[in-house]
């Protein structure tokens, strides 16, 4: 019977599998992209619920709701879910949907690998989430897994490490697919420097992933052998060094930060020109800036650990290299700003999210520059100032970038237009609450509140309350997002093939609704030139 079905299948080459088979056996980049995005959304809400627990406990001093150990596992799981479960799969989902459309390829280069890299994720996160129910509870040593603390973990410890290995494998496979697709499947007329900036940003991100995910795998494997097989990589008593873990971890961790943000740079570089009705300013410098940032990301890792007691020369090197990142990042911000200069601007939801990205990511960049100054970092390190900094670059940075991308391309994916008024509500509520949530955390950190604590001295009460109110408002506002998408997919008004009048690029040259298979014939040079001229 199976054979029979398979034969019938082969007979209709363009046949679209139905029911659960369409998703479980998926090899179509659009279906896999959708699965990635839905999965990322799910993890975003699970991780968000954990953030709500954190902010609820921090609403006022004293312990009202959760045990400190559970609180620590909430902060740890929130980070792991948001980084590996929400942001990274969302980017891979956007890559799956968009890269073939944007480079004129019929699909991703390696469709079965694509299926595999997605389907690893539900297993990885089932394992990770199930640790909340094992003896000893979930991992509670922070997502950075610093030994010796992480070695004290209970039954969750090996499960978390296995889950991280799975996530890493998924990311590496996804990255391989992106690189092979971009380098081998581009339409013949599309030279590297004619690629859309989103594709460029993903190409570089994919190389970062391949470079550093194995480093993380190595680090956590050494933790595993230290715990179970008597090695002492990170134990001083056996000749090891706990600080070595931090060096290895952040050699992964800093490029990882750019893995989370570079595709957002790419998306903003698509959206700002579209709604300014003007080509991106300084296309080539944008490419070089991403490449420089990617290179620098490998030589700044120790700025995450200035307080471990490094030699003076080491501290100076990492301070200077970190400050250098401000240069290419500044170039990008200036180029985006100048793209709007003498443009013809409109403010549809994707543009609103891109603009919030531009302003708020810059604020995160400024606090990042402050953190680079080593003597000042001695006061900032491990306080809420750091929490404020990285949430400014990750929430209005990476998350708003994802939302901007979804609102930009959703009309192409569904061939329907979403409720733009509701999307603007989603934007304004998010943009306001994200600041209420994270801006006061700068004050808390400077005033002396350490991070990763479930309870605090009473003078920190007021700003913590404001921050928590912002968190609840932000969390509730996000419920609009899946509702808007669901409503659009079910009952949105038909969208034009070029949903935004200023949008350029090959994806907008395709008809709407999109055929299941696109670019089976490569786009002509004329079409590519039209897409690239902006």
């Amino acid at each position, binding site marked *: 019977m199976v054979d029979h079905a398979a034969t019938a299948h082969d007979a209709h080459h363009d046949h679209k599998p139905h029911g659960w088979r369409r998703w479980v056996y998926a090899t179509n980049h659009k279906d896999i992209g959708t699965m990635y995005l839905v999965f990322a959304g799910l993890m975003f809400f699970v991780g968000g619920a954990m953030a709500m627990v954190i902010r609820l406990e921090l609403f006022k001093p004293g312990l009202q709701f959760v045990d400190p150990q559970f609180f620590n596992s909430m902060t740890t799981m929130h980070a792991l879910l948001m980084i590996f479960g929400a942001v990274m799969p969302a980017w891979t989902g956007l890559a799956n949907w968009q890269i073939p459309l944007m480079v004129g390829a019929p699909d991703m280069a390696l469709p079965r690998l694509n299926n595999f890299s997605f389907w690893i994720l539900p297993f990885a996160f089932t394992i990770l989430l199930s640790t909340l129910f094992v003896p000893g509870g979930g991992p509670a040593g922070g997502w950075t897994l610093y030994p010796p603390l992480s070695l004290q973990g209970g039954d969750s410890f090996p499960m978390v490490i296995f889950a991280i290995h799975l996530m890493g494998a998924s990311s590496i496979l996804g990255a391989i697919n992106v690189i092979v697709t971009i380098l081998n499947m581009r339409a013949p007329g599309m030279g590297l420097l004619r690629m859309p900036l989103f594709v460029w940003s993903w190409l570089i991100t994919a190389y970062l992933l391949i470079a550093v995910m194995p480093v993380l795998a190595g680090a956590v494997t050494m933790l595993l052998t230290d715990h179970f097989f008597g090695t002492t990589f990170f134990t001083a008593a056996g000749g090891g060094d706990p600080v070595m873990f931090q060096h290895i971890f952040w050699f992964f961790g800093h490029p990882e930060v750019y893995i989370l943000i570079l595709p957002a740079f790419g998306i903003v570089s698509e959206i700002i020109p579209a709604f300014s009705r003007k080509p991106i300013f*300084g296309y080539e410098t944008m490419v070089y800036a991403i490449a420089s940032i990617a290179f620098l990301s490998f030589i700044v890792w120790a700025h995450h650990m200035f307080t471990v007691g490094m030699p003076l020369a080491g501290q100076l090197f990492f301070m200077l290299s970190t400050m250098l990142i401000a240069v290419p990042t500044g170039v990008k911000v200036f180029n985006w700003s100048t793209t709007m200069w003498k443009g013809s601007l409109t403010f549809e939801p994707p543009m609103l999210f891109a603009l919030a990205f531009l302003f708020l990511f810059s604020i995160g960049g400024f606090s990042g520059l402050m953190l680079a100054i080593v003597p*000042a970092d001695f*006061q900032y390190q491990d306080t809420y100032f750091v929490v404020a900094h990285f949430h400014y670059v990750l929430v209005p940075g990476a998350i708003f970038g994802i939302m901007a991308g979804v609102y930009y391309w959703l009309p192409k994916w569904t061939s329907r237009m979403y409720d733009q008024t509701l999307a603007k509500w989603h934007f304004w509520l998010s943009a306001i609450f994200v600041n209420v949530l994270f801006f006061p955390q700068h004050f808390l950190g400077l*005033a002396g509140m350490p991070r990763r604590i479930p309870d605090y001295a*009473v003078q920190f009460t007021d700003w913590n309350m404001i921050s928590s109110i912002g968190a609840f408002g932000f969390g509730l506002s996000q419920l609009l997002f899946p509702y808007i998408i669901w409503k659009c997919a079910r009952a949105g008004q038909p969208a034009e093939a070029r949903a935004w009048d200023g949008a350029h690029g090959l994806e907008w040259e395709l008809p709407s609704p999109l055929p299941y298979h696109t670019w089976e014939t490569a786009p002509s040079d004329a079409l590519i030139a039209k897409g690239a001229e902006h």
Partner: protein
Amino acid sequence: MIRKTILPLLALAYSFAAPAQAESGWHLLNMRQGVTEISRRIYDLHMLIFWVCVVIAVIVFAFMIWSLVVFRKSKGAVADTTLVHNTKVEIAWTVVPVLILVAMAVPAARTLVAIEDTRDTGLTIKVTGFQWGWHYDYLDDNVSFYSRLSRDADAARRLMSGVDPNTIPNYLLDVDHPLVVPAGVKVRLLLTGADVIHAWWMPDFGVKKDAIPGFVNEAWFQVDADKTGVYRGQCAELCGRDHAFMPIVVDVKSQEDFNAWLKREQNHG
């Protein structure tokens, strides 16, 4: 489910949090200047880089907002699609930030060199972080003791203890035995950890250093001779369940008072 329960809980929490509060914390916005030369130099660096960022932000954001206001399609703006590249401008906004960064790096490096100068210290104390408290050992004076969260705060911080933290003086920032040091003397700390990594942080001294098991880290501070008093800080590296409950308190005394204290401790010991 969590979302549904938040609003009533919010109202409930606020109703009993607001009235009991002793003093407001709205004014706590910035880093403190502290009581050592290093902490003041750090504060100055912090303010310098802060104002540099503010000036850049004002210029860049003004430029963006100007574009958002003036070049709106609804105001009849027509895009100038020839404006795609300008080598001179691009070189300028690469070089100018480099110069600003160099200007920032010089005072930062000078301060860092001063912080790393651990010569000529007058008193050495070994600090051991453990889960969850601190142990202080005056290496040359045969005095050592443990320092843990004060008893009243330790009772109040239990889950649903029913004790309002606002009624506890220096809640979570008080210990049974504070570290005692003389003002005006360069005190050297040798830091290590007994079990996991901790971090000894005293904001008023501008000192934060990890206490790592199996290794000894070095830090120092010299409190101004006229700044005697009690200073409070906390562990700054996640160290397990009770990370939030291992405060650091330093009682800075005059040299005479310190000598008298040391003598008393030695006699007790």
